[in-house]
């Protein structure tokens, strides 16, 4: 079993710092492991050997488990790491803080712990992190401080240099019904760092889309190689924080002052074929769109709407993002004339208007989906809660297999039909288009080497 296999799919776990006091983080951690749905063996480690959450604890591990979760005060961490290493654990996650983030002395302790672990054949995640969450056949393995998990299992995995961003991720996943496979917070990365996790996720069959939250890359070229290998199989979306950081660095040349810190990162992302999100909203939009499907989409788009203004906003966004909006074919226009009112717009946006008879929606929608001029469709519906419209979109999407994203406002029946069909719903017309654009971005590119 590889170390990251032990982190994400452990058969047995030890919790250092398991405490009786509900306010203590070690208590939260043990409770999370026990209640999340983990089916393997769990050992509570506590120097006072008190009973915690109905189970006896031991003062030292003695026998190996796959993964040690360590949540004890900083000064006690090295001894816990040593105990886990001596017992023969494959990996340890140190959630405790008070190390490299506090200064050179803490950094030195990190180095020492890494040396100690590696000498015993154990890998170290953290310290100063939020832990791991992973979907296993029996349920969630929650080896983290988060007590609210994503609602659904699914293809999205996140590796994050920020623990707190994990909280945002889980909240967004719940709100959007986004299915999650893995989450790991790498903290100070004393040993295991982001790139190594990305390498593991590339091979993980449960992971279909990888999200990366990064503030910096320890070995940029190794990240590029790992990401490139990953994007050959599944999309990688990166949110890079600290874009401005080094922008002010002193430079003798114009190029130096123009580069800032982000010029190189963008070059790296382009080569690796990763999709860069501009902000956190965009990041979660991209993950939602790619979780629905990672089949590459073409750039030729129909904006299908019953809402004039918002449809035009979507068209503006499409143009801004380099998508094409060809008019429907003559055959499609003729079909729409038969089904929708005479003032329905036969351009693009294709506006069927709220006055379209409900019974006409499925066939009209189908005609647009089947029009060979279009690679995909963005659906915009503000407030028209007609079941036939929702059903029409769901059926046409399934029949044609064309990629779809949607913005639906206050039309619960339409929303329900689209959600059931696995169509990503976004919070604005522009974001629906940007999410569609993400599918275009996963299309093979000439600079991409076969993985």
């Amino acid at each position: 079993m590889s170390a990251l296999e032990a982190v994400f799919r452990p058969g047995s776990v030890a919790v250092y710092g398991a405490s009786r006091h509900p306010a203590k983080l070690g208590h939260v951690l043990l409770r999370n492991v026990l209640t999340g749905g983990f089916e393997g063996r769990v050992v509570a480690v506590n120097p006072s050997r008190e009973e915690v959450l109905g189970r006896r604890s031991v003062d030292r591990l003695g026998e190996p488990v796959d993964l040690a979760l360590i949540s004890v005060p900083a000064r006690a961490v090295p001894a816990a790491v040593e105990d886990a290493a001596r017992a023969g654990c494959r990996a340890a996650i140190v959630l405790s803080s008070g190390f490299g983030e506090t200064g050179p002395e803490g950094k030195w302790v990190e180095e020492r712990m890494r040396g100690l672990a590696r000498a015993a054949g154990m890998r170290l995640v953290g310290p100063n992190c939020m832990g791991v969450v992973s979907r296993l056949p029996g349920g969630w393995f929650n080896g983290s401080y988060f007590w609210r998990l994503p609602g659904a299992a699914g293809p999205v995995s996140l590796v994050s240099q920020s623990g707190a961003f994990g909280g945002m991720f889980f909240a967004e996943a719940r709100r959007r019904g986004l299915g999650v496979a893995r989450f790991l917070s790498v903290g100070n990365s004393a040993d295991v760092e982001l790139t190594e996790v990305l390498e593991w996720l590339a091979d993980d069959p449960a992971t279909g889309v990888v999200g990366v939250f990064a503030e910096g890359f320890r070995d940029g070229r190794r990240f590029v190689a790992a990401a490139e290998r990953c994007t050959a199989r599944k999309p990688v979306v990166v949110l890079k924080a600290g874009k401005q950081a080094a922008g002010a660095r002193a430079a003798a040349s114009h190029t130096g002052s123009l580069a800032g810190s982000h010029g190189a990162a963008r070059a790296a992302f382009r080569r690796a074929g990763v999709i860069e999100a501009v902000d956190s909203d965009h990041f979660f939009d991209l993950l939602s769109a790619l979780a629905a499907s990672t089949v590459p989409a073409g750039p030729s788009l129909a904006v299908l709407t019953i809402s004039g203004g918002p449809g035009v906003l979507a068209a503006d966004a499409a143009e801004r993002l380099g998508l094409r909006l060809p008019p429907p074919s003559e055959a499609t226009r003729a079909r729409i004339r038969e089904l929708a009112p005479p003032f329905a717009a036969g351009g693009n946006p294709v506006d069927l208007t709220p006055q379209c008879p409900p019974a006409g929606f499925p066939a009209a929608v189908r005609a647009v989906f089947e029009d060979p001029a279009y690679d995909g469709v963005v659906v915009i519906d503000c407030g028209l809660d007609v079941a036939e419209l929702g059903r029409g979109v769901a059926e046409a999407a399934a029949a044609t297999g064309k990629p779809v994203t949607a913005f639906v406002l206050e039309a619960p029946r339409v929303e329900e039909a689209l959600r059931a069909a696995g169509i990503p719903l976004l919070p604005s017309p522009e974001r629906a288009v940007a999410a569609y654009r993400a599918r275009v971005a996963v299309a093979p590119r000439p600079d991409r080497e076969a993985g």
Partner: protein
Amino acid sequence: MAALSEWESKLALGDVPRPRERLTATAAEAVAFARTLGGPVVAKASGPVHKTERGGVRTRLGPEGLASVWEELAALGDGRVLVAEQVEADYELIVGGVRDPQFGPVVSVGLGGVAAELLRDVTFLLAPPRPGELELALAELRCAPLLRGWRGAPPADRAELTRIVAAVSRLLEEDEEVVEVDCNPVMVRGGRPLVVDALVVRR
């Protein structure tokens, strides 16, 4: 950090498209060279950094004008004067390179001239660029239509531009001490890019 002179920088870059130019050791040599060019020339002091700000660049000179400023320019720098044919640019680009602390050597192409820092329309590539990558990067520039040939002008010669980018990339890869490279401006005339000034900064 040590900045190489323009001439040293150009020699370090090697075989890149440049204006016809020569580093002259005497006024007589300069004038003779200028006559062979058969048009107005630029004379540049050799050696000092920020030569433009220090009055070390004179443009649109004929042979007599060149003779009259030669000694003054020579005294500003290392005693020599760089004489080059005057290039009238349709537009200016900047091609450069830096050593990024996380991603290593990267090269850049963008809009140059006075607008470079104002518009910051520059794209970066990991060095060395892969085949096809420059084209993708250039398409990201706001000035991409200019490079494709704006209003009937010829497109920027991609083979020549690729040579300049490759030279910058090679310099960063082969010499660990090189930290920054500027080809600025790269003047484009009739689609043909010429490295008019260059700066290499070593650690």
